[in-house]
């Protein structure tokens, strides 16, 4: 099967979800009352592994009201060490339980030498890294049939000895792993700008036909550098980039992330509504 056919099949089977929110505990009480304003909820899957019963009750409750998309951070698909089989078993079980249309992880690594970083670190843009990612993705896909999409990360560190440009590296990983792209537009803007490049140029080099989901969030500027803190309202630069992506990519959903400095939920939901309108404007959903 050719690459184009494979992508077409992948996307054709995925539902158009609309605009949603990444679930965080401070939103818990208000979110259920605002069900009609959120088309889906993304959960951090790691927070429900080995979770106590009361935590799983929360997941059941969310699942009764929303389509849930699990997003993971600690699978560490970029780890050159062997992928953790126990962790794979646990996420397989959670994904089976949720039965989501797709699930997501990052292009990076969080485990190395017995350390768990808690947030993805960058990979060297080399053929060896592509091979490592591919090997680990194949292992995971043997256990989990649900489509996997991978997120671009934002990192100030560039490893020495790159063999590929970053967009080409991302493209290679997605192609060889048979994955969709979770495009984080705030990561893209922050990353490209801080490295002295153009977000638009970076975007132009990405395989936009593989975009399934988009993340967006607010950040701030410190000492002339952008910081994707997920702690502020979304900037106009991010809105502009989001619009450009939705205009060009077959986006199935857009998800707002807010991780800190939590305002009342209505202050977050107007941003979800604006994202929903962008999707409508570009006919990604009704």
């Amino acid at each position, binding site marked *: 099967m050719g690459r184009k056919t494979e992508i077409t099949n992948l996307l054709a089977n995925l539902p158009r979800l609309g605009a949603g929110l990444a679930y965080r505990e401070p939103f818990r009480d208000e979110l259920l009352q605002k069900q009609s304003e959120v088309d889906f909820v993304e959960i951090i899957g790691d927070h429900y592994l080995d979770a106590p*019963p009361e*935590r799983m*009750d929360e997941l059941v409750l969310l699942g009764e009201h929303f389509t849930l998309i699990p997003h993971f951070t600690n699978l560490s698909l970029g780890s050159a060490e062997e992928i953790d089989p126990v962790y794979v078993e646990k996420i397989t079980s959670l994904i089976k339980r949720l039965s989501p249309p797709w699930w997501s992880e990052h292009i990076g690594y969080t485990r190395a*030498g017995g350390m768990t970083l808690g*947030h993805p670190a960058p990979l060297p843009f080399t053929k060896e890294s592509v091979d490592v990612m591919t090997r680990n993705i194949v292992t995971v896909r043997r256990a989990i049939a649900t489509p996997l999409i991978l997120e671009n990360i*934002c990192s100030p560190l560039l*490893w020495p*000895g790159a063999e590929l440009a970053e967009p080409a590296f991302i493209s290679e990983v997605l192609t060889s792993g048979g994955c969709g792209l979770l495009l984080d537009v705030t990561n893209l803007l922050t990353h490209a700008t801080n490295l002295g490049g153009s977000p638009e140029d970076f975007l132009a080099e990405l395989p936009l036909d593989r975009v399934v989901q988009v993340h967006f969030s607010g950040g701030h500027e410190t000492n002339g550098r952008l910081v994707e803190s997920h702690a502020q309202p979304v900037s106009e630069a991010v809105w502009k980039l989001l619009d450009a992506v939705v205009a060009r990519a077959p986006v199935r959903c857009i998800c707002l992330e807010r991780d800190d400095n939590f305002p009342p939920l209505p202050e977050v939901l107007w941003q979800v509504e604006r994202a929903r309108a962008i999707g409508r404007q570009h006919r990604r959903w009704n």
Partner: protein
Amino acid sequence: MELALQQKLVARLATDREFREKFFADPAGVAASEGLTVAAESFAQIHPEQVRQLARVLRRRRLAVVGIHLPLTRKALGERFADLFRNYAVSPPPGKQPFEDALGFAAFLEQHAAEKGLDPQWAPSIARYEAAELEATWLRRRLLVRCFPHAIKQLAALLTAGEVPPGSYQRSTTAVWWRTAASSRLKHWLG
């Protein structure tokens, strides 16, 4: 194997302040001592400021997660929560799960308060109370009892309402968490 060693080195550089400074004093030498062969020389080209920025990014993410796990402590300490976290997060996060970092930070706060003091004086009690709740929840304790020298119930209510009350709030408090079985729901009593 070389990539695994490189990843381990970058992970240590991004999370261990002491190791980071040692590395930048002699990048090629430290890379070689960590077992790198082919890449030892190229690692000498890593930009120190980029590594420090990566360390800040990872620390900021840890701070956000720990803040969600210790919400009352964060309110009690205000901006000092982040300042103190910076002093705590000079080494890799303990354990594999997010709550373990919060437990580590709560223990750090208690030690800091004992050695250097912490204002408000009841803040370490709030941190210890939240840490006990995390322990009872995530480690699925069947029975956990903690005593505090401060009025936890009253302080928790005020902090939840957005107030950081002045005053000492000295009053003995006992907190109990229990489950009838490991698979049953957690119960809590505070008096």
